């Protein structure tokens, strides 16, 4: 199939960007969205032009490196699918596709479609971990955990930190991401020990980095490629307020 692509081009972080229009021909419906972009880049290199920069790594939906706002949707039109797992069979011959980088004050564009998501890492470093002493790995089944708790924890742990939530949110809020991390650990005994400190530190870091305030629109959960729900945001609110009132 033949496609018209409108892609955001920006040579570097400082430069002003603009949309460029490209035509790619004979794209197989079997190819993935990123393969389609590879084909475009091949074409551009042959024409002596600068290829389009975009983020990707595992290409199997687990690392969270890929991004892209495609026709108004984070990770494209299919629900619970990352851009790398999106296939061209979701588009029609002759389609026009608008491809934009994540837009959020805390995610500045580095080049073309690549944005700097260090802010998410910084929030994680503030408390999104469990402290352990070095030594032998403890037996996973040594601490009994109720199945419902384990499952809810795993649902939240599915977050790949891609940034789609903050990029979609009209408030540029990172709450879904922070909620997923706080919630997945709050549901497990290993995580509860540092629960109060974690909630306070991660929220403080999130605010400091310039993310917005959640107003419970739920746009994030609609666009999340891992189906994280805003119920985890309710738990984060609870964990945070409890921690604040106790200290």
């Amino acid at each position, binding site marked *: 199939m033949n496609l018209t692509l*409108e892609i955001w081009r920006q040579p570097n972080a400082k430069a002003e960007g603009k*949309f460029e229009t490209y035509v790619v021909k004979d794209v197989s419906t079997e190819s993935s969205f990123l393969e389609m972009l590879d084909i475009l880049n091949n074409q551009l290199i042959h024409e002596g032009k600068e290829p389009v920069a975009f983020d990707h790594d595992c290409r199997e939906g687990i690392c969270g490196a890929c991004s892209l*706002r495609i*026709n*108004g*949707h984070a990770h494209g*039109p299919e*629900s619970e699918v990352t851009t790398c797992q999106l296939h061209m069979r979701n588009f029609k011959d002759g389609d026009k596709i*608008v491809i*934009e980088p994540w*837009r*959020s*004050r*805390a995610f500045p564009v580095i080049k073309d479609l690549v944005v700097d998501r260090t802010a998410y890492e910084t929030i994680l470093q503030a408390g999104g971990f469990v402290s352990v002493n070095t030594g032998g790995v403890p037996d996973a089944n040594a601490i009994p955990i109720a199945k419902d708790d384990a499952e*809810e924890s795993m649902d939240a742990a599915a977050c790949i930190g891609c940034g789609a939530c903050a990029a*979609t*949110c*009209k*408030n*540029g*809020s990172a*709450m879904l991401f922070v909620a997923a991390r706080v919630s997945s650990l709050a549901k497990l005994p290993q995580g509860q020990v540092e629960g109060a400190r974690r909630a*306070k*530190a991660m*929220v*403080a870091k*999130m*605010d*400091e980095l*310039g*993310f*917005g*305030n*959640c*107003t*419970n*629109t*739920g*746009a994030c*959960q*609609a*666009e999340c490629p891992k189906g994280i*729900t*805003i*119920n985890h*945001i*309710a*738990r*984060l*609110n*609870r*964990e*945070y*307020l*409890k921690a*604040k009132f106790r200290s």
Partner: protein
Amino acid sequence: MSGSIFTSSIGKKMFMSISGCILVLFLTFHMCMNLALVFSDAAYNAICGFLGANWYAVAATAVLALVIVLHIALAIVLTLQNRKARGSIRYRANAHENGVEWSSKNMLVLGFVVLLGLIFHLVHFWYKMMFTELMGAHEVAIGAAMVAPTDGAAIVRYYFAQWPYLLLYLVWFAGIWFHLTHGVWSMMHSLGLNSKVWFKRMKCISTIVATIIIGGFALCAIVLFLQGNGILPNPLF
């Protein structure tokens, strides 16, 4: 390390939620009080009597005013911060995200509709009923007639007999209804009082609460209009 609850995002949302909750409780009370007017002018005027020039009525009004100011001030602060966080470049392509309520994205706009209606409402009811009484006047001009500020029923009936007032009020009610369909469940969510099991229930409760409150107000306004124009008898029963 972790800053003050007053400046944190979740802290501000907590105050937004508590102030919203107080306003919802007030609206519920106000709606019940209005329903009294549907049944009896005397009952309504008796309630107005309790809420006239008394220290507790004045204290409650002051608290309410404070809560509204806090709610609006926080709404503006939050919205400005959020716009800044969104960044200066808008997306070129936009699509509807599944399951996102229109009201949830337009709370500030709806809030200003509520505020405009509120100013209008205060000017022609609160000013004539409570404020005039507080100032010690014994009569207030309603159209061509002079009425005692304690005769709330007469004042309210005079306005609601006219269709432009009815229409304006119904538009205002619609604005509050939209604000509340999102607001009620959102206020629970902001306090952390929601979960996987309660999520859908909470949204449903929110719509029911908004509909009961606004339905009560609208019913009262419509009945008064119909009575004022001789279509329904006064008293009803």
